């Protein structure tokens, strides 16, 4: 009995230790991500409140709380549900650090996700793996940086920056969204064409369904996860049967 206990303690300790060693890098990364992510978000929140506060109470252009509340309620009714839905929907793809970056800098579907997945594909990382997480963060952080610099240049340089782009090229930017989204789907459909086709069909069905429009993307994501999970599980089960 006593010996058994000692043994248990010993193996317990050993496995804990090796697990700590294997996870140290990633665990440190996650705790650092929470620290810097929360700190930067908090500072930005304070700064974005200070701006209207300054207009109201230093400049003295306060419109009264009535219109402000009216504006907020109008906004919340317009897209308030996305405050909760978007971070949850995109979390499985973005991960901890990716979420902090993407939701601070915005432009998630048209900039952050494509850059993250392109970076993951460039190093051949499997979706959902730690390699995918880190390469995605490297891709997103550089994308956020690039985008911010371009925005800064545009606002400071004003319309001048845009006049540098010829009109014919400017009009082709009408198609920037279908081109990005098509390429991203192609990136995934390349390895798993059936799943890519399935996602597109589900998207089409949900689009024409009576689901409230703000919930449509979440609905598509949930249905796609359910269906692909079911197919993967069936594939695994079959494999197991074959092996036996």
């Amino acid at each position, binding site marked *: 009995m006593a010996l058994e206990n000692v043994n248990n303690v010993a193996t317990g300790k050993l496995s804990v230790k090796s697990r700590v060693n294997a996870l140290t890098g990633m665990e440190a990364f996650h705790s650092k991500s929470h620290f810097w*992510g*929360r700190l*930067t*978000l*908090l*500072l*930005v929140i304070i700064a*974005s409140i200070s*701006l209207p506060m300054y*207009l*109201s109470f230093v400049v003295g*252009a306060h*419109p009264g709380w009535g*219109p*402000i509340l009216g*504006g*907020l309620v109008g*906004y919340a009714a*317009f*897209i308030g549900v996305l405050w909760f839905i978007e*971070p949850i*929907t995109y979390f499985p793809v973005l991960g*901890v*650090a990716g979420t*902090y970056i993407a939701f601070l*800098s*915005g432009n998630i579907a048209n900039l952050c996700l494509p*850059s993250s997945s392109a970076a993951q*594909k*460039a190093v051949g990382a*499997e*979706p959902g793996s730690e390699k995918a997480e*880190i*390469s*995605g963060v*490297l*891709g997103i952080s550089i*994308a*956020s940086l*690039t985008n911010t610099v371009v*925005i800064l240049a545009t*606002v400071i340089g004003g319309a001048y920056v845009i006049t540098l782009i010829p009109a014919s090229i*400017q*009009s*082709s930017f009408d*198609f920037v*969204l279908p081109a*990005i989204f*098509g*390429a991203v*789907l*192609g*990136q995934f*459909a390349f390895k798993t064409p059936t799943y890519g086709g399935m996602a*597109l069909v589900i*998207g*089409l069905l949900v*689009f024409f369904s009576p689901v409230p429009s703000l919930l449509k993307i979440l609905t*598509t994501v949930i249905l796609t996860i359910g269906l692909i*999970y079911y197919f993967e599980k069936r594939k695994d089960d079959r494999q197991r049967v074959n092996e036996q």
Partner: protein
Amino acid sequence: MTEEVMSLANSPVLWIIALFIIGMVIFQAIMFYKIAKEAAPAAGLNEQEVKRAARTGFISSIGPSFGIAIVIISLLALLGSPITLMRIGIVGSAATETAAAQIGANAFGVELGGDGFNMQAFTTMVWTMCLGGMGWLLFTLFFTKSLGKTESKVRKKNPKVMAVVSLAAMLGAFGYLLTEQMVKGLTYSGAAVISLVIMVLIMKLADKKDISWLREWSLGISMVCGMVGGSLLTALM
């Protein structure tokens, strides 16, 4: 916008706050790049792959960034430079922010940039945009940690589930986003299909001949092909 409102919208204090916010976004991006690079060996990425991932992020973001830049030009006249900078620099997209500005102005009883759009109306608009955009920031601030905990629990229990969920979430999101674009018309569908097909061809070629730089450029190249294709279809029709 009247001159009075315009000079308030471009006043130095607003510039300082907007530049501080943009500075935080830049600082955050650099910080995360740094800590991700530190964690790279633990995640099985070598130095070359770190560079490759970063380069891909850069190449892939140039097109979308200019797409965003073109749209914000229209906002500059409506909101003034500092507010445009701080709102587009964080959270919002041009479409959301324009709608938010409209809602704010309406809450004060005027139209955006129309008659009676005075300093109070401008302030109401700024409050609406700032409080409205705060929702995402607050949710991310408070709940990313618990989402992360749930994720690592699932991953420890069954890493395969994470792989499936992550892949399927991406496919689902873009399946829907693409549908939304394609139903806009034939030219949009054309642009989407062209860029999808080019992407598949590039990835096939890159895998077959093992050309890693092609993988880095894949998103940039397919995007440009889709955009050019869409324009050509418009010209033809």
